[in-house]
Structure formats: structure tokens, C-alpha cells
């Protein structure tokens, strides 16, 4: 099976029309000794039904948990049906990048709407059409900030380890220095940051809420960074922005984040969505595609890919980023999610996630031997001590509950609006039972 529609007779007629005896004649430029002289060492092709059986069997080898109390960069939020159905529409699904505006107004307008929603969430002036994920958004933001004089990138140790490692990799690429600002009590150490800020620092990245779920003193951090003449980059959980102070209100120059919580499935890690927004001042440094409004030849409102001279297909080795394909369909998904939730729904998701996490934290810390590791206020994730962690987590898994993530500092728990009170109570009961043994 190969999805080739031409019949054997048609293929013969086409070969004749181009003066080829066989397919091999079409590969006459390939040196003979290089041609694969055997069949691929792979199974025979399958019918659709056989492929469905094979893939379904693989899917069934995974364990799907009824209750997910693990986050750490991938969050189990409720995904409304409409949020699944819109991006599944075949035209949205199978179109290419909207280079031909005259037959792509639907994609272009949807991105323009997405950009507006990201600006509204973050308080920024301009958003791009997306990058790969939150980690690469942080790395691209760091690259935006470097100039000839300021080359050093600072990142908080309380950021997601994948983000730190990705930014480190991008810095390794360009040969620029990355320094990690240590954490204290589960938050960025302000004194250490002060020490590290000097005239060589291009930017500082902080995650809000951070990897441990803790709220950072984002305003204070911003003041310190700006006083040193560097740029301030905040990585935000977009759900939290329904409730929490925007990066703009905290003084950020660039706001980025992982858009997965906005209606995208956990999907074993992807595809996800990196959002990036900045102030008008830095618009032309923003990497990736940006959709702009204009008029057509008849004066009607129309949308186009704009400011393209920033990009690799024009600027080549002088482009600030090589990004080409992005996560457009995930951006569409996020836009449908935000529109379905509206301002009140988004605040409610944030409020309920926070409430459930605090309820779970209280229920767990009521058990002997379990304590919160960090003292500060948190959003929907928190770290606890947990004796017999492996045993406890295994018991939860047997009951269809994916417990917190074991990390060096303890166990990192998460709750979203999806967890109801009964499942949280049951979780605490199972933990208590294992520890009582």
C-alpha cells in the first residue's frame, strides 16, 4: 500500500510519455554502485486495518492513569470537545505555511487572533506565531537579548531542568556563556543574582511559577536586572495568567512559556507550543513568523506573513534564528481553548487548579512524615518530603493514580481542575495507608 492512485496502466502510459522503459531509467543520474540492490529489510506493507491493530496494541501497552498528580512541564488539564474538533478540520490540518495569502486567509486570521490572545495574556505588545516549545522559546529569547557587548545569559536554577539544558545547548551552539543563578528555599537567590549581574550580562530568565511551583519575587528580580542594564525574560505558565500578575506588570521585556496547558494533550511530550511575546521596542528582534494586518488590492482588510526580512529564508546566515516550521496547529488549538474558556473560564481553571493543589498539600502534610519542603506561596505544584516514596508511588499507580515526580529535593506534586475532591481524598488515604504499614 502506498497511497499512489495511478493504476498500472496509467503508470505505464506515463513512463512511455517521458521516454522511460522502467523506473530505473528515471534514476539514471544515480551511480549504479550506490543503488540499493536489495529490498529494504522491513516488514511487508499493511492494510489500514492491520496498521490500526498494530498501533492500537502499542497504545495498549501504555498505562493511562485516571488521576494525574504529576506536572513538571506537562499538565493534565481538561480539554473541551470543541478544542479537539477544530484543529482536526482537514483544511487547517493539511495546509502548508500561509505563504500565499490569497488562499490562506483562514490560517492567517487564526494566527493573528492567537497573537492577540497571547498579547492579552502576557500584557505584551507583540507575539510571534509560535516556536517549538517553552524550552526553545526561552533559548530564542536569550538569543534576542545578546548584542556585541553583552553576551552572557543568566538563568535561574529554579527553572525547569529541560529549559536550563536547552538554553545551555543553544549557548553551546553560538559559543556564548550561560551562568546558573542558584536557588535558595526553592526560589531564585536574589543576593546571588545581584552578585552575578554586570555589564556583560545580556539577559536573565526566571520561570513563574517556577519548577517547584513556587512564586518568584518577579517584580524585585526585574528591578535588579534592569538596574544592571540587562533584559528581563519571564517564562510563564499560561493558565496561571488567568489569575496572576502578567509579565508586563512585573517589568519583563520578553514573555515566553510552554503553551501545552492550553488544550494540548500530554502526548508523551509533544507536539507542544512555545509562545513568545515582547514589547513594541523589540518587535523586529522577535524570531519566527509574525502575521500582520494590511489591505488587499481592493482596500479590504487582509492578513499576511509580515516582517519576513528577519527570517532565515531571506537573511540566511545572518538570521537571528533558523526557525522555519513552527507549531501553527498547536497555536490554533490554544486559541480555540482560550476562546472557549474566555476570561472568566480561564480564571476559573487557574483558581480551581490552585485550590486543588492546596487541598492536596494539606491532606498530604496532615500525614505523619510528610512536610512541605519550601515555605513560599505556590500555584498548582509543590514539593513534599515523602518517606518510602517508591512504595507509595507504586501503590498509587496500582490504583490508577500517577503520583508526584520524585526529584532530588523530594516529590513534586501537581493538581489541576481535573482532579475532584474524591480522588484527592483517596490519594491521601492510600499514602497514609502505605506509610502506616
Amino acid at each position: 500500500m502506498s497511497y499512489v492512485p495511478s493504476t498500472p496502466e496509467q503508470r505505464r502510459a506515463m513512463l512511455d510519455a517521458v521516454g522511460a522503459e522502467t523506473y530505473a531509467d528515471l534514476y539514471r543520474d544515480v551511480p549504479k554502485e550506490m543503488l540499493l540492490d536489495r529490498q529494504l529489510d522491513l516488514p511487508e506493507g499493511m492494510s489500514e486495518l492491520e496498521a490500526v491493530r498494530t498501533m492500537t496494541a502499542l497504545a495498549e501497552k501504555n498505562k493511562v492513569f485516571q488521576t494525574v498528580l504529576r506536572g513538571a512541564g506537562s499538565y493534565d488539564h481538561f480539554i473541551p470537545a470543541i478544542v479537539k474538533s477544530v484543529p482536526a478540520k482537514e483544511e487547517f490540518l493539511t495546509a502548508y505555511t500561509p505563504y500565499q495569502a490569497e488562499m490562506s486567509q483562514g490560517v492567517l486570521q487564526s494566527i493573528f487572533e492567537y497573537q492577540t490572545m497571547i498579547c492579552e495574556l502576557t500584557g505584551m505588545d507583540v507575539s510571534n506565531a509560535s516556536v517549538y516549545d517553552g524550552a526553545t522559546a526561552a533559548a530564542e529569547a536569550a538569543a534576542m537579548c545578546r548584542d556585541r557587548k553583552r553576551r552572557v545569559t543568566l538563568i535561574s536554577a529554579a527553572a525547569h531542568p529541560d529549559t536550563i539544558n536547552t538554553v545551555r545547548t543553544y549557548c553551546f551552539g553560538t559559543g556564548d556563556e550561560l551562568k546558573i543563578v542558584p536557588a535558595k528555599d526553592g526560589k531564585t537567590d536574589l543576593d546571588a543574582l545581584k552578585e552575578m549581574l554586570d555589564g556583560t550580562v545580556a539577559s536573565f530568565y526566571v520561570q513563574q511559577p517556577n519548577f517547584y511551583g513556587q512564586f518568584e519575587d518577579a517584580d524585585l528580580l526585574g528591578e535588579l536586572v534592569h538596574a544592571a542594564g540587562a533584559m528581563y525574560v519571564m517564562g510563564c505558565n499560561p493558565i496561571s495568567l488567568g489569575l496572576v500578575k502578567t509579565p508586563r506588570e512585573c517589568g519583563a521585556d520578553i514573555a515566553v512559556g510552554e503553551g501545552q496547558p492550553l488544550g494540548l494533550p500530554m502526548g508523551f511530550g509533544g507536539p507542544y507550543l512555545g509562545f513568545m511575546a515582547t514589547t513594541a521596542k523589540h518587535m523586529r528582534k522577535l524570531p519566527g513568523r509574525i502575521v500582520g494586518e494590511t489591505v488587499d488590492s481592493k482596500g479590504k482588510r487582509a492578513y499576511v506573513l509580515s516582517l519576513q526580512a528577519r527570517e532565515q529564508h531571506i537573511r540566511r546566515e545572518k538570521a537571528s534564528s533558523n526557525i522555519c516550521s513552527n507549531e501553527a496547529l498547536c497555536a490554533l488549538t490554544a486559541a480555540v481553548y482560550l476562546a472557549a474558556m474566555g476570561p472568566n473560564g480561564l480564571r476559573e481553571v487557574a483558581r480551581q487548579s490552585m485550590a486543588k493543589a492546596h487541598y492536596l498539600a494539606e491532606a498530604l502534610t496532615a500525614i505523619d512524615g510528610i512536610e512541605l519542603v519550601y515555605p513560599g506561596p505556590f500555584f498548582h505544584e509543590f514539593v513534599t518530603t515523602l518517606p518510602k516514596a517508591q512504595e507509595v508511588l507504586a501503590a498509587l499507580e496500582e490504583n490508577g493514580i500517577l503520583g508526584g515526580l520524585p526529584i532530588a529535593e523530594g516529590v513534586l506534586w501537581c493538581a489541576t481542575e481535573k482532579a475532584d475532591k474524591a480522588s484527592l481524598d483517596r490519594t491521601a488515604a492510600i499514602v497514609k495507608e502505605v506509610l502506616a504499614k
Partner: protein
Amino acid sequence: MNIPAELKYTKSHEWVRMEDGVAVIGITDYAQDALGDVVFVNLPQQGDDAAAGEAFGDVESVKAVSDLVSPVSGTVCAVNEELVDAPELLNSDPYGAWIIKVENVADTEELLDAEAYAAHCEAE
């Protein structure tokens, strides 16, 4: 094609005019025509060094970007900020819309007079 006789030119299509030891630099009519509608100019900052034969900024059209090459070495002493909001001036008035001024001019690229520049454009 407008090529004022009193200016000097580079092969990369910049013009330069010396005013009391200060080099005033812009792009030629030929350059603006080849670029098409200019939509943005990336400018250096006052106080930056300019090096003869090296880029000091670039100009963007919708589908292209082109380096601005400095004909002289020295220090950028003025930048035409008007171009930030009105890059179209480079199209409408290429010889009026200067881009930067350079002082302490040390080194100079090989410059063409109007006649030689006209021949150079003809050959391109």
C-alpha cells in the same frame, strides 16, 4: 537614473559626501530601485565604530535584505533617526535621505566618481 556629479560612490551602491571632514553616507538611486519599497532600516548607534568595507547596518524590503557597507573607517557621529519611522524616504529621496555621518575618518575605500559609477551600474 540619477547620479549626481558632486558625490563619490562605492561599488556596493552607497554614496558619500565629505562635509568638513565628516563623511555623509546614503544609498544611491540605483540601489533603492533595485531593492524596491524599503520597509525598514537597521541603523547603528551614535558612537559605534564604522570600518571601511564592512556593514554598518542593513535595509529591508519586503522580500530582501541588503547590507549597508561603509565606504570609510571612523566613528559614527550622527544617525538619521527619521528613517526609523519613514524608511520610504530612501525610495523617494535617496540623495536627500542620508543614513549616517562618520567623523575621524581614517581609512577610505576605493571610491568611484559619477562617471565611473554610471559605468559600473551599466555593467551590473
